[in-house]
């Protein structure tokens, strides 16, 4: 039991450390740390319809986070979830444009599949650069994020631009009302079902298939896996493509569900938050399901804060960043320090 409990305690301790850092930063800019944190919690869990908001923000994050788990377990730092998410939304929007007029039972699955394909393709080129040329995937996927953001700007102000649209933010024409898988509140049975399916399949893939076992080993000891004759390159490419496809699925779910149209620069922190969820969950798909709902609550709180309390929404960014700073720290260090102190 202690073996299972220990990582949880360790994670909790480092999140506490992250919160202390946040409080220091809030205090440094002149905000009351306790009041800010309480307001964030209020916005996350105790406002009217909190559960519906948590599901709206948490479920797409969960879908992307399962993908991140798959690629991180294989030992590949695919930090391009944001770009793959954008490309998924863009491809789904193009599919929706081409299929205009067709019935919903054809169009909705087609758009979701197009989103997955888009995300997978945006993960494929860093994967190929990684296994064929050895270009580091951390930088290529990150540059992919920036390129994807520019493609999104281009698409929403060019090919898919809504001619009747006005206002500052460029956006595409709205998705046909009959195709929306949720209203703009964003929590619907279809999205819950998609997320549940992703978690189930993700869990099965990671824990019950040879790909899952081998990729987990490849992440910890690639030399051994290579010597055992497993095709590490194939595992790498599959891991990248799967994680990209899931991020793309999340993008198309956001498009067909709560957003209803493609807007330039939407949800810029989605990918980073999904990476955090995967890390806090300790690379477990089941844990990610719960952690994603927590981060979904934080995200919804970030939108609530400026409206209801006048606190800046960047307070949430600070919390996320501090958690990122500490989450991969190893608590064994403390034990080492204690031993050294006793001497």
């Amino acid at each position, binding site marked *: 039991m202690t073996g299972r409990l220990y990582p949880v305690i360790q994670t909790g301790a480092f999140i506490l450390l992250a919160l202390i850092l946040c409080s220091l930063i809030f205090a440094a800019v002149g905000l009351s740390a306790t009041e800010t944190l309480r307001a964030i919690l209020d916005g996350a869990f105790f406002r009217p319809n909190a559960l519906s908001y948590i599901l709206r923000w948490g479920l797409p994050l969960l879908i992307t986070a399962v993908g991140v788990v798959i690629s*991180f377990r294989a030992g590949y730092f695919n930090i391009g979830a944001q770009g793959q998410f954008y490309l998924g939304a863009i491809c789904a929007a193009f599919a929706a444009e081409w299929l205009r007029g067709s019935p919903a039972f054809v169009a909705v699955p087609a758009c979701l599949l197009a989103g997955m394909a888009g995300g997978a393709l945006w993960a494929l080129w860093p994967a190929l650069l990684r296994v064929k040329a050895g270009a580091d995937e951390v930088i290529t996927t990150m540059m992919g994020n920036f390129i994807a953001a520019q493609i999104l700007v281009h698409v929403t*102000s060019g090919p898919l631009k809504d001619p009747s649209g006005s206002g500052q933010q460029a956006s595409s024409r709205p998705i046909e009302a009959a195709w929306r898988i949720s209203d703009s509140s964003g929590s619907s049975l279809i999205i819950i079902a998609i997320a549940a399916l992703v978690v189930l399949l993700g869990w099965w893939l990671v824990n019950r298939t040879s790909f899952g076992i081998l990729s987990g080993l490849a992440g910890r000891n690639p030399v051994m896996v290579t010597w055992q004759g497993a095709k590490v390159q194939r595992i790498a490419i599959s891991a990248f493509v799967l994680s990209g496809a899931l991020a793309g699925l999340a993008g198309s779910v956001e498009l067909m569900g709560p957003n209803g149209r493609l807007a330039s620069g939407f949800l810029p922190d989605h990918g980073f938050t999904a990476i955090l969820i995967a890390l806090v969950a300790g690379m477990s798909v089941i844990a990610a399901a719960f952690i994603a709902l927590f981060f979904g609550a934080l995200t919804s709180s970030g939108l609530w804060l400026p409206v209801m309390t006048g606190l800046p929404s960047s307070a949430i960014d600070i919390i996320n960043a501090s958690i990122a700073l500490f989450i991969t720290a190893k608590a064994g260090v403390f034990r080492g320090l204690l031993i050294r102190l006793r001497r």
Partner: protein
Amino acid sequence: MEDLIVAFLRSGTPLVYVTLAGVIAQRAGIWHLGLEGMMITGACATILGIVLAQSVLVGLVAGALFCCLLALLFWFVVEVLKANQIIAGLGLTGLGLGGTALTLTAIFGSEGAVSAPFGLPRLGAAFGAFGGLSILVAAMPVVVFACWLLLCRTRFGLRLAACGEHPFAARATGVNPVTVRLVALLLGGPLCALGGAELAAGSLQIFSVNMTAGRGFMSFAAVIFGAGHPLGATLASFFFALVGALGIRAQLTYGDRIPSSLLLALPYVATVIGLWISARMRGGNTAFSRELGQQ
């Protein structure tokens, strides 16, 4: 042509300063993905120093101090708590981006842009077309040379490289890699602050949220592209700046035919291609994935 060179120097100088900070960290064995967060902190502190204290010097010193504080935090997390460098670096970047946004809201009440009445001192009319450039542009070659001297021609530079390439060997000769890395990261603090200062106060005299727009990450790519050598990395960041300047020029000339947002993506595409070329030339590691902090 002169316009192009001026535009090139303007976009290149911030990159070079931040790249040098990345090179020092890289040689000491730290992948510094927090450069973006330190750069924006430097930019914010410089503009706030000019606005609140009416002094460029106060801004620069404050920027350097805050960047050193971030560097210290990064060192503590990465070297003492043994956190994963990439994730912690992304966290540091998030802290810089979010922290500057929070600071703006706390001081001015909204996350907008802050413009300063004056910027860094300029070279002056004596330099003709280049007179509008800041003194940091002129100081850049000196700083690059000093970094090269420090890293490649001194005992300290050798020790630093030893800590990056073979920490056990360094330890065997009595050099503590953990301490050397602290020095390396702290040296990067003022460099990032100068890069941010040049970006915000060099020609624009304005600070806005997220204004670095990935330049820190581009600098990091330049470090990798330049194989961690100060001169190679400087050339790499010049290359990215040149692509950026050419992109802006193309936007002015062919803006009606080529969409501007795709031209804005050019430096990032160049970074990917540059990385690909350097990996091919040096024979990158194609087989093995990295060791991951699996919990």
